[in-house]
């Protein structure tokens, strides 16, 4: 047999039906559902008199629309409340596991999937959310879908897909000290561009990727979509197996050992051919900060805001100028001179326990700068619980951070956590689009330690020069 990529192995194992000239029908092992992209899908099912085919392979929670204030305070926005209630009604009597606002298993879909052991190597995973690519970190084919497809998966447990092409992003040499998984993916997007991965599934390989923890790998795969890719994935290894072992919904005992034997066969074979290949040298990476309005507009912390005149193509020049106008930045300003108003540590990119630990280590014994409002929003109720057991919440609170309840929070400007017009934010989320965090808000994407340090300093700083207490 010719050598196969990991993607090909997973794809081939999931093809239910194939007709020439039509998209393949592939089986879906795990379908995650949340309140925003599902109501119209359930309505479609009802109108057509169809049922959920595999409630046992479907898991639902609320995350996008929920306030992150204490659980004792109700949801006040009536339209949000209606949407949250609609999910509960839609799920009633379906047999789908549902983690509502008060559940110990609630959280951002892409945090709870792996954290609860639902996501396992070799699976196909979908969710009506583009950052489903996160789950690829465990060696899955995981992709975001639209609401019509959510309905399709609910009804048939399959998805129609044209087979994407494959792309290897090989990151050679180890990550330098102070350079995080977030910097790695920002560096990759800066290099390939925001549609550099279009039509492809990226497999991240190489020394820098292999040495990442699972939380770091999830950060990398999370932002695959920001590089335009259909999905991102990383081959499972001992790090992956140890991560999955013992999680609530992971196989146990002999079943687990048998599963690991299967998972070991997943990595791409030696000599497997990718449709495209990009090599990046980790040694060239530094902590990054985005300066513009898409995640490809990124600069090293030691750099300056670029001059639009320096861009070759007219469309790029115009886009850069529009971005600087929106961001209210002058060309050639040193990145470290950019002062911020808000700090958001959270979102499915960077709200797992290691992210919170790394941020806490930076702020321990220090105080948030006057005039900065900083918040930490754990990715799930379990992450929050774990962080509190370790006392991280106290470190943050002592430093003047607001410690919140799990949810998407200020990642997307949909729930009560939003930027005010003109406010500038250092954010660990994944999108710096215009108005993303609130109308008129200005977003700079950074790693958790960089965000934490910016909260203390009041402006961006080079984390490699940071002195911890």
């Amino acid at each position, binding site marked *: 047999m010719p050598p196969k990529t990991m993607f090909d192995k997973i794809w081939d*194992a999931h093809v*239910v*039906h194939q007709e020439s*000239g*039509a*998209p393949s*029908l592939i*089986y879906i092992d795990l379908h995650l559902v949340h309140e*925003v*992209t599902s*109501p*119209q899908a359930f*309505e479609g099912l009802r109108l*057509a008199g*169809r049922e959920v*085919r595999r409630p*046992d*392979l479907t898991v639902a929670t609320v995350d*996008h*629309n929920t306030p992150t204030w204490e659980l004792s305070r109700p949801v006040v926005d009536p*339209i*949000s409340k*209606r*949407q949250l209630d609609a999910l509960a009604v839609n799920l009633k009597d379906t047999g789908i596991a549902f983690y509502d606002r008060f559940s110990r298993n609630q959280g951002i879909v892409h945090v709870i999937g792996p954290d609860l052991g639902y996501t396992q190597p070799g699976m196909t995973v979908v969710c*009506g*959310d*583009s950052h489903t690519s996160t789950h690829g970190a465990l060696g899955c084919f995981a992709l*975001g*879908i*639209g609401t*019509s*497809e959510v*309905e*399709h998966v609910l*009804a*048939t*447990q*399959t998805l*129609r897909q044209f087979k994407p092409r494959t792309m290897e992003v090989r990151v050679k040499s180890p990550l330098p000290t102070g350079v995080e998984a977030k910097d790695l993916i920002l560096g990759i997007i800066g290099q390939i561009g*925001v*549609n550099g991965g*279009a039509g492809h599934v990226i497999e991240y390989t190489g020394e820098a990727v292999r040495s990442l923890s699972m939380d770091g790998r999830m950060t990398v795969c999370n932002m695959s*979509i920001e590089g*335009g890719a*259909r999905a991102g994935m990383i081959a499972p290894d001992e790090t992956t197996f140890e991560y999955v072992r013992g999680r609530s919904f992971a196989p146990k005992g002999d079943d687990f050992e048998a599963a690991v034997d299967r998972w070991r066969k997943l990595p791409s074979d030696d000599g497997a051919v990718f449709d495209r290949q990009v090599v990046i040298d980790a040694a060239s990476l530094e902590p990054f900060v985005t300066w513009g309005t*898409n995640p490809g507009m990124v600069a090293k912390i030691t750099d300056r805001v670029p001059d639009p005149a320096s861009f070759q193509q007219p*469309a790029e020049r115009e*886009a850069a100028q*529009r971005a600087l106008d929106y961001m209210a930045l002058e060309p050639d300003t040193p990145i470290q001179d950019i002062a911020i108003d808000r700090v958001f540590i959270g979102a499915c990119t960077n709200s797992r326990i290691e992210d919170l630990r790394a941020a806490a280590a930076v702020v321990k014994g220090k105080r948030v700068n006057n005039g900065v409002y900083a918040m930490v929003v754990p990715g799930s109720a379990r992450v929050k619980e774990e962080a509190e057991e370790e006392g991280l919440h106290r470190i943050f609170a002592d430093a003047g951070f607001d410690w919140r309840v799990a949810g998407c929070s200020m990642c*997307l*400007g*949909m729930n009560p956590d939003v930027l005010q*017009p003109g406010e500038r934010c250092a954010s660990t989320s994944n*999108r710096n*689009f*215009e*108005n*993303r965090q609130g*109308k*008129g808000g200005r977003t700079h994407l950074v790693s958790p330690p960089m965000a934490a340090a910016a909260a203390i300093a009041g402006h961006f700083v080079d984390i490699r020069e940071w002195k911890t207490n």
Partner: protein
Amino acid sequence: MEPFTKLSGVAAPLDRVNVDTDQIIPAVHLKRIERTGYGQFLFGPLRFNADGEPNPDFILNHPSIQNPKFLVAGRNFGCGSSREHAPWALEDYGFRCIIAPSFADIFYNNCFQNGLLPVVLLEEQVAALMDKLKQQPGATLSVDLEAQRLWSDDGEFVFSFEVDPFRKRCLLDGLDDIGLTLLHEDKISDYERRMGVAG
């Protein structure tokens, strides 16, 4: 789904690259549980000033751009989130055909699910069309999906375009994807038995 065969109408030029779905419809409007009624929010922050008044500089507020059916935009249109509210908002506003040098994958796919035709033309072709539409606001285009042809009604441009034959058929016939898949129900059950994942 409403079939898509031929279309003629006013085209609006949106000369921006990387138009993301947050620009098309901001998240704050995704709280509704209906499929319709999103047109009023389309391109919200671009279309309206902070005081809620229409922004006269935005193309959809141009007096000659009435009831546009075509939108012409820069590359990587529809990047960002998977929200199907983006094609819903475009369609609810009246658009049926989006033309760009490239589209983000999920958005492209979502269009076909909703009877919207995304047309990929070469970068130079889109640039030429964009220039024309900016110089002659209110100019009209036509498209014939069966013939895979798109032209300006004054005859200045005629382009042919590629579209996957399966998706084309589904649009032309207004086919329901789920109905099509359920024709293969036996194969799904077979797969579940074979893989030991029967429910």
